[in-house]
Every structure is written in structure tokens, then in C-alpha cells.
């Protein structure tokens, strides 16, 4: 496969489509099961309320999952010629301004903030940052780095 070089100027600063998402209780319980979470605060609304939350708290990494729920989540990568099998997750980061709970409608505003290459383009890095709002309040910020590798795909 030939190396596809991308134009940093056309990528850096590019705003991706804004979308809304809500963490549903059932989905949070399924997530808790999948990660072996045993703290009832994450599955039992009564326990969550005793702990001071209005509903089941959205656990620290679940914003990543909400962001994956956007319409056509890999459309941007496809448009720039990236095959999903080439992708490695490089970094993921979260800044929290308060705990978000089940049922809150969240607005995600993602944009590409950096693009760079290493090893002559064999490794290409895309950095996306996303602001998450509940109504007008900034509640969390996400930072995602993916690495696109050159692969011999069959």
C-alpha cells in the first residue's frame, strides 16, 4: 500500500460535526458489567443518590463511548483514506469539570487540533479535542490521539 500523505493545513483546526448524546442507565449498567465494576454507585440509582449523585454517574472513560456514538463515527477517517485496520489508539485524555449523570443531554464539539507524521509517513498521528457541554456548561474535555500505520492489508 502506498503512503498517503495528508495536508496538515487542511486538517489542523478542522471542526468535525457537533452532535448530542445521552448516557442511558441501561447502557451504563452494561458498561459496568463489561469492565467488572462492582461498586453499586455505578449500577444502582439509590446507591448513586446516597453517594451524592442525581442519577448513575457517567464513569471516567465513558465519554469516549458517547463520542463513538456519533453519526458515522469513522466517516472523517474514511474520507481521508484511512482503513480502520490501520488505526492504533495512541493516547486518550479527559478533563472533568463536574460529574455527569445518566439522562443528561450532552453536546459534543470535536475538532482536529494537530496532525504530524513520523518515520517518513509510516506513522501518522491525528489529535482530536472535544468539548462536552450540558446546556451551556462545559462539563468535560476529551483529547484523543490515533496513530495510522502503513499495513500490508490482504
Amino acid at each position: 500500500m502506498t503512503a498517503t500523505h495528508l495536508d496538515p493545513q487542511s486538517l489542523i483546526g478542522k471542526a468535525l460535526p457537533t452532535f448530542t448524546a445521552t448516557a442511558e442507565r441501561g447502557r451504563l449498567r452494561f458498561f459496568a458489567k463489561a469492565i467488572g465494576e462492582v461498586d453499586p454507585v455505578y449500577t444502582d440509582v439509590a446507591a448513586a443518590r446516597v453517594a451524592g449523585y442525581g442519577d448513575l454517574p457517567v464513569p471516567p472513560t465513558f465519554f469516549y463511548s458517547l463520542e463513538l456514538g456519533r453519526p458515522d463515527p469513522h466517516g472523517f477517517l474514511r474520507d481521508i483514506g484511512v482503513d480502520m485496520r490501520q488505526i492504533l489508539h495512541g493516547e486518550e485524555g479527559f478533563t472533568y469539570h463536574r460529574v455527569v449523570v445518566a439522562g443528561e443531554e450532552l453536546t459534543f464539539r470535536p475538532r482536529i487540533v494537530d496532525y504530524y507524521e513520523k518515520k517518513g509517513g509510516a506513522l501518522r498521528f491525528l489529535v482530536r479535542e472535544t468539548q462536552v457541554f450540558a446546556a451551556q456548561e462545559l462539563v468535560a474535555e476529551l483529547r484523543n490521539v490515533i496513530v495510522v500505520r502503513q499495513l500490508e492489508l490482504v
Partner: protein
Amino acid sequence: MSASPSIDVGTELAPLELPPLNRTTLALFAGASGDHNPIHIDIDVARSAGLDDVFAHGMLSTAYLGRLLTRWLPQQQLRSFQVRFVAITPVHGQPTCTGRVAEVAEVDGERRAKIELEARLADGTVTLSGVATVALGAAR
């Protein structure tokens, strides 16, 4: 917010030891997390990309690090959390999550601790390296 006077530089979090990751765990995590990339659940796709087998989602180990943090302190005290994916976790890999307080400082009027985090396999391979900041209480 609970004051946490016993937390200081060098404090170690009780390690979170996970069972070996089987294919069911990966399938459940794909569904629950919304990460449906078949490279984690379909061996045919993994082989078509030149791999011997599927491997675990990096965000699964990240979620385990999240559990390490939130069983130590309430989630309300978590201010930030970042990870870097250093090596893949193969099927049957057995992660252990650890954390250690690297720094305590006052930021925005509160005492905060910086926690260095790691996920490591039984053979010693570090798979994730990360850092979190947590609030310990009002500034003294």
C-alpha cells in the same frame, strides 16, 4: 469532599488485579463501549491485517485504571485522567493496575495529587502508562 490527610507523595493505591481477558470479555466490552472495531473481536479481520489474533481494546484497560481511581476516591474528586497506550494486551493477558502519588500541590484553591498510573501484564510488559489528578480537599 473528604479531606485526605493520609495521602502524600509516595502513597500507593491498592493494586487492582484483573482476571485473564478472554474473548467473551472483549465481545462484551465491544458492545458496551460502542467500539465495534472488528480487529478486537473477529480473528479473520485480525489476520487480514497481519496479526495472529485479536487483541484487547486499549480503552478496556483504561476503564480498569478508572476503577482503580474511583474505588480509591469518589469520582467527584477526579479532575483529569490521561493514558498513553504503550503495548497491546493480547487475549488471555492478565492486567494489573497500579498507581502512586507523585506530587501534591495546591491548584485553583484546592490540594491536588498527581497520580502516576500503570497497567502491566503478568510478564511485566507495561501496556498503559497514565496520569490522573485528584482533589484532596480545600487548600490549607
